[in-house]
């Protein structure tokens, strides 16, 4: 470590010796802190895994596929929660991705300089609002709006009930409501990653396309988007990771019923909202262990999704710096 050579004289030698000790202590300390991150992840995996083991052992693979969740009878199948998690996240991504892409293209390609910062700031602000405030707003503003004009409009006026997705009574709390609130919540994450990636596209790409006579849209479609594609996909998957684990707003809007229903008007359940609702009143050890198993599954899914997203974004930023050179 130390390249300083000891000179004659006790003072200097002592000081250098002291420095070497200090260096070693310092290096040890920061290494320890750095190791806290992997240790924390390991600890989470271990603690959840151990607590989930009885349920996973008892129900086996059926835990993921059985749709009966009945704490009284001691039957635990997580399928409705897994289904609800996936469906609400898909709705969120379907709604949020075009919007987020539109905003980031607007900001990176169209907006005049003075407008960029304020609009970007406003979109980022969406990420600063706590989940529970989204839930509060959802209960008292979004649900009434959905109940009265929106849901009947989709079902009766547009006749979308024939698709099977928009049928049944319009109570309000539903998979659709959860999907919409999730869309608003993941939008800033997708938008900020895509904006970053789009701004990293070299000017020369755009200019070359424009010089060939492309319109601005053609330049975006032909030159900018392909360059930024995998980074944008990374941003979408990052948003998916957020949507999968989002708890409070979803718990307050999804209606919390452990059933699999095709209609998006029907209430559902997600893994996170199942945990939020039942964890503190788990009646038996089996119930608790089943909930821990749900948490463990959620942990695994989000770790995998996040790893993929990070890998994609990392590849683009690495590729961009490599190609730019």
């Amino acid at each position, binding site marked *: 470590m*130390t390249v300083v050579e000891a000179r004659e004289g006790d003072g200097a030698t002592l000081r250098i010796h002291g*420095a070497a000790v200090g260096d070693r202590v310092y290096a040890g300390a920061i290494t320890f802190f*750095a190791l806290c991150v992997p240790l924390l992840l390991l600890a989470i995996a271990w603690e959840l895994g151990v607590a989930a083991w009885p349920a996973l052992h008892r129900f086996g693979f059926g835990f993921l596929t059985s749709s009966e969740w009945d704490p009284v009878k001691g039957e635990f199948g997580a399928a409705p929660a897994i289904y609800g998690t996936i469906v609400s996240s898909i709705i969120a991504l379907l709604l949020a991705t075009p919007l987020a892409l539109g905003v980031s293209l607007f900001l990176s390609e169209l907006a005049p300089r003075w407008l960029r910062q304020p609009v970007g700031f406003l979109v980022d602000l969406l990420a600063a609002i706590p989940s*529970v*405030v989204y839930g509060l707003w959802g209960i008292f503003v979004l649900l009434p709006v959905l109940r009265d004009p929106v849901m009947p409009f989709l079902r009766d006026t547009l006749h979308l009930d024939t698709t099977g997705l928009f049928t049944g009574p319009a109570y309000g709390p539903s998979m659709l409501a959860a999907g919409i609130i999730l869309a608003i919540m993941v939008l800033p994450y997708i938008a900020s990653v895509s904006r970053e990636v789009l701004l990293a596209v070299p000017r020369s790409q755009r200019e070359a396309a424009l010089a060939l006579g492309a319109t*601005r849209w053609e330049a975006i479609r032909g030159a900018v988007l392909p360059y930024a594609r995998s980074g944008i996909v990374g941003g979408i998957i990052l948003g998916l990771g957020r949507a999968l*684990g989002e708890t409070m707003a979803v718990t307050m809007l999804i209606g919390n019923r452990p059933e699999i229903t095709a209609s998006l008007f029907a209430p559902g359940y997600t893994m996170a909202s199942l945990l939020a609702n039942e*964890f503190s009143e788990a009646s038996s050890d089996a119930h608790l262990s089943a909930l821990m198993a749900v*948490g463990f599954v959620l942990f695994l899914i989000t770790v995998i999704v996040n790893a993929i997203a990070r890998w994609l974004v990392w590849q683009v930023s690495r590729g961009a710096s490599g190609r730019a050179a």
Partner: protein
Amino acid sequence: MSTAIPPLSPPLRPTLRQRAFSERTQRTLRRRRVVNGIMLGVFVVAAVVAVLPLIFIFVHLIRLGVGSLSWDFFTKMPTPVGEAGGGLANAIVGTLILIGVASAVGLPVGVGSGLYLAERKGASLANGVRFLSDVLNGLPSIVMGIFAWQFLVRPVGHFSALAGGVALGAMMIPMVARTTEEMVGVVPVALREAALALGYPRWRTSLSIVLRTASAGIVTGALVAIARIAGETAPLLFTAFGNQFWSLSLRQPIAALPLQIFSYAISPYDAWHSLAWAGALVLIALIFIISLIARIATRARFSAGGGD
């Protein structure tokens, strides 16, 4: 750039083929321009639609929240159903205590591992830690909550403010680590070399030169992390749990603004609903004040000429 191109030859009359070609080009050009206009319009609409929810949320927060704000809100305790008045004094103090515990846990570990990431750039352990801290950052907060329950509540047998603070602090670690790494990374190497050349040992160089230079940025990052965890509810559901009474003890359940907003929002009482809106307004105000300080700190740093 705009040098005029000299005419190559005297203008000729276009042949029939050329004229047909140019007409076709005209037509497709018109179509392409229309498509261009539509798509650019779509982007503008998307930008407007994306900002709309934010505006709606703020309008409702202010309209419904301000009405229930009063001095009592900040100084009184929650009242039982049916009793008028009451405030969320305990929840506000509880949230501040939880933020304090979270910072005590999250900041040292976060800054320490950020220093490691910056100083051992390229080492395989650093790459691994960087990747894992991103993964940790994306972990659902409810998972952190049940982990903290299993780790700190179950063995003790009762909910505690400490468990809630630790859960929030664990969420801060990856955020603080990454901003620390970034901020330490932009400190000029010359500064470090100058200190080393003057005979400073490495550890002192790192702590009193590099870390100090980067401190404004790190403070900003820490404040952003605090702003993010201040509104978290899910990790507190089974750890801090909430408390209807005044409590400052770390070993007892403690009230928190987000928890109180949640239980008031799903309650059937109008009085509690308006308290929930007021609580949400105060929570958002708290978060924005913290973020604003962070922004000002950043600006001060940039105008001082440091950083990138």
